[in-house]
C-alpha cells in the first residue's frame, strides 16, 4: 500500500494518507531521524512507513526485539543528538513505561505515539478505544510531569507530531501523542506543508567551555542546555535521582530542588503547552468536551443540536496532560452543563469533575465496546440537557 506515499515530489499535492502515515510525515518534517519500534495493530503502519522513509532521508529505522528495548534505543538515540520516536499501542505502551520514566528523570527528549485500541491486555486489537488516557499520565511510576497530546484528524496527526517534537526538545521531556484506531486508520486528503512553513524547534545545546558545563544546573526556563554524546560535554546519565552534575544523590537539599525544577519547567510554560480548539463555544449554553476521534462525532452533533435550537459548543482538548484547567474554567463558570463523551469509563470526565468544584453540571457518555460514539448518541444527550 505504498504506491502514492510521499516522496519529496509529492509536496504541495493532495495525498490520501492515514493518520498513521501523516504522523510519519510530521516526524520527518520535525527532523526525526531515528525510529525504534515493534509493530502492533493499530500502529503498525507507522513502523512500516518509517522503515522505508527514514533510510531514504539518511535516518535509522530499527525493529527491536520488543517495546522495552524500543524505548531504550530511542533514549540512546536522543542522548546521541538525534530526534527520536517510537510508536505502539496498549500492550506495547505498558512495556515502555519503565524506560519512559528514565526519559523523564534524565530529561531526554523523545516522542512516543500510542494508537489506542481496546484493552486491557490483548483486548480488541482492531477496535477503537481511549482507554490509555490515565496510563499516559501515570503509567510510569513516581511523581513526574508529562506532556500528552491527542489528535483527531489526519491533519492533526501531522501537526501534532511536529508539535510533540517541538515540546519535547524545548522542555527536554518525553511527549506522548495519543491517537486511536479510528484516527490512525482513517484516510483523508492532506496537502503536506512545504518545508519552512511550520515552526521546528531544536534543543538548546551548551555553549560554555566543556569543563564549565554543569549538566543539570537550573536556569530561568528550568531546562538545562543538553550536551550530546561525543561533542565533548561529558556528563553522567542515570535513572537515580541526581545532583546538578548528574551524579546520584540522597541529600534532601538536592533532591527537592531537582524535583521542583522537573515540575517547574512544565508548569511555568502552561501557556505554550496547553492547547484546545474552541468550536461554537462563544455563546454556548451546553458544552461538549471531547478529544481524539470522539471530537469529530461531537463536532457534527453540536451543529445538529444548533439546527434544533440548542446552543451547543465544542471544546476539543489537544493537550490532555498537563490538564488544561485554565482554559476550561471560564466555560465551567458560564455554561449550564457539560457533556464529556469518551471511549472509556470516564478517564477525562473525572478530571473535569475535579476542576469543576460544583460550578456546573457534568454529564458523561461512555462507550467501551470498541465502536466510535456516533453524532446521534451525543445529539440525543444534548437535546435533553
Amino acid at each position, binding site marked *: 500500500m505504498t*504506491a502514492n506515499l510521499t516522496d519529496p515530489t509529492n509536496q504541495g499535492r493532495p495525498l490520501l494518507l492515514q493518520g498513521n502515515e501523516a504522523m510519519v510525515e510530521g516526524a520527518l518534517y520535525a527532523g526525526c531521524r531515528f525510529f525504534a519500534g515493534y509493530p502492533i495493530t493499530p500502529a503498525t503502519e507507522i513502523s512500516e512507513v518509517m522503515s522505508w522513509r527514514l533510510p531514504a532521508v539518511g535516518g535509522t529505522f530499527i525493529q527491536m526485539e520488543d517495546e522495552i528495548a524500543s524505548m531504550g534505543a530511542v533514549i540512546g538515540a536522543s542522548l546521541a543528538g538525534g530526534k527520536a520516536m517510537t510508536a505502539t499501542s496498549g500492550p506495547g505502551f505498558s512495556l515502555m513505561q519503565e524506560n519512559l520514566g528514565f526519559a523523564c528523570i534524565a530529561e531526554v527528549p523523545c516522542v512516543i505515539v500510542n494508537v489506542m485500541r481496546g484493552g486491557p491486555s490483548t483486548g480488541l486489537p482492531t477496535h477503537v478505544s481511549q482507554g490509555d488516557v490515565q496510563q499516559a499520565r501515570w503509567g510510569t511510576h513516581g511523581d513526574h510531569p508529562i506532556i500528552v497530546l491527542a489528535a483527531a484528524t489526519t491533519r492533526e496527526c501531522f501537526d501534532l507530531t511536529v508539535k510533540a517534537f517541538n515540546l519535547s526538545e524545548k522542555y527536554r521531556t518525553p511527549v506522548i501523542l495519543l491517537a486511536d484506531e479510528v484516527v490512525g486508520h482513517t*484516510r*483523508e*486528503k492532506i496537502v503536506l506543508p512545504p518545508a519552512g512553513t511550520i515552526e521546528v524547534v531544536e534543543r538548546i545545546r551548551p555553549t560554555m567551555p566543556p569543563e564549565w558545563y554543569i549538566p543539570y544546573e537550573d536556569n530561568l526556563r528550568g531546562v538545562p542546555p543538553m550536551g550530546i554524546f561525543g561533542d565533548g560535554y561529558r556528563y553522567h546519565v542515570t535513572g537515580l535521582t541526581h545532583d546538578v552534575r548528574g551524579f546520584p544523590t540522597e541529600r534532601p537539599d538536592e533532591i527537592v530542588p531537582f524535583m521542583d525544577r522537573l515540575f517547574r519547567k512544565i508548569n511555568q510554560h502552561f501557556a505554550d503547552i496547553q492547547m484546545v480548539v474552541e468550536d461554537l463555544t462563544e455563546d454556548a449554553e451546553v458544552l461538549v468536551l471531547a478529544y481524539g*476521534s470522539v471530537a469529530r462525532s461531537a463536532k*457534527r452533533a453540536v451543529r445538529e443540536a444548533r439546527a434544533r435550537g440548542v446552543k451547543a459548543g465544542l471544546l476539543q482538548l489537544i493537550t490532555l496532560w498537563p490538564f488544561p484547567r485554565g482554559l476550561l474554567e471560564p466555560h465551567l463558570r458560564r455554561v449550564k452543563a457539560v457533556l464529556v463523551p469518551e471511549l472509556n469509563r470516564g478517564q477525562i470526565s473525572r478530571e473535569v469533575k475535579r476542576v469543576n468544584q460544583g460550578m456546573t453540571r457534568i454529564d458523561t457518555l461512555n462507550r467501551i465496546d470498541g465502536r466510535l460514539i*456516533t453524532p446521534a448518541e451525543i445529539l440525543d444527550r444534548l437535546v435533553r440537557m
Partner: protein
Amino acid sequence: MKRYEIRLAGSGGQGLILAGIILAEAAGVHDGKFVCQTQSYGPEARGGASKAEVVISDEEIDYPQVIKPDLLLCMNQRSCEAYAFDLKPDGLMVVDDSFVHDTLTTLAVPLPFTKIAREEVGREQTANIVALGALAVLSGVVSLASLKTAVLARIPPGTGELNEKALDAGIAAAGRYLEEKAGKSQ
C-alpha cells in the same frame, strides 16, 4: 454534493479495504472532493467480516464514518443481511449475486462481480475492481477517468492490464444492466 456515504461490505480477503482506498483517492485526490475512508475488520488475516467506508463531501468532513449509506455494496450474504436496512430511503444498493442469493429488497442491483472476475477477466481476486467500475457507472459518484487513475496507482506492479480489464468489465456490466432496465420500463 453535501455528504455522500458509501459502505463496501463483505468478507476479509475480498479486497474491500483496497477498493475503499481507491474510491477515496479517486474522489479526493483526483476529483478534488473532501474524503474520509475508514475500515472495520477483525483480527483474522482472512475470512471474518470486513467493511470499508468512504465519505465524500464538498465540505470538510467531521464524523468520518458512515451514518446511513447512500451507496451500499454487499459482496456476500452476511453483509447483505447486516447492512441492507441501514440504507438511506433513496439509496443505491448493489450486491454481488455470485454470493448473495437473497437481496432482501427488490431495489437492490444484482451483478455477478466475482463470476465476471473469474470468467471474463481471468482472475477472481479482481472482483473488487470489477465492482468499483460498476459502482462508478451506477452512482456517478466518481468520474471514470479519476477511478482508472486511482486504480492504476494502488495495484501491485505488473497487474495494470489485468486491473484495467477488470474495471472495463465492471463498467460494461453496469452499462448492460442500465440498458436492460431502460428497456423494461419502456
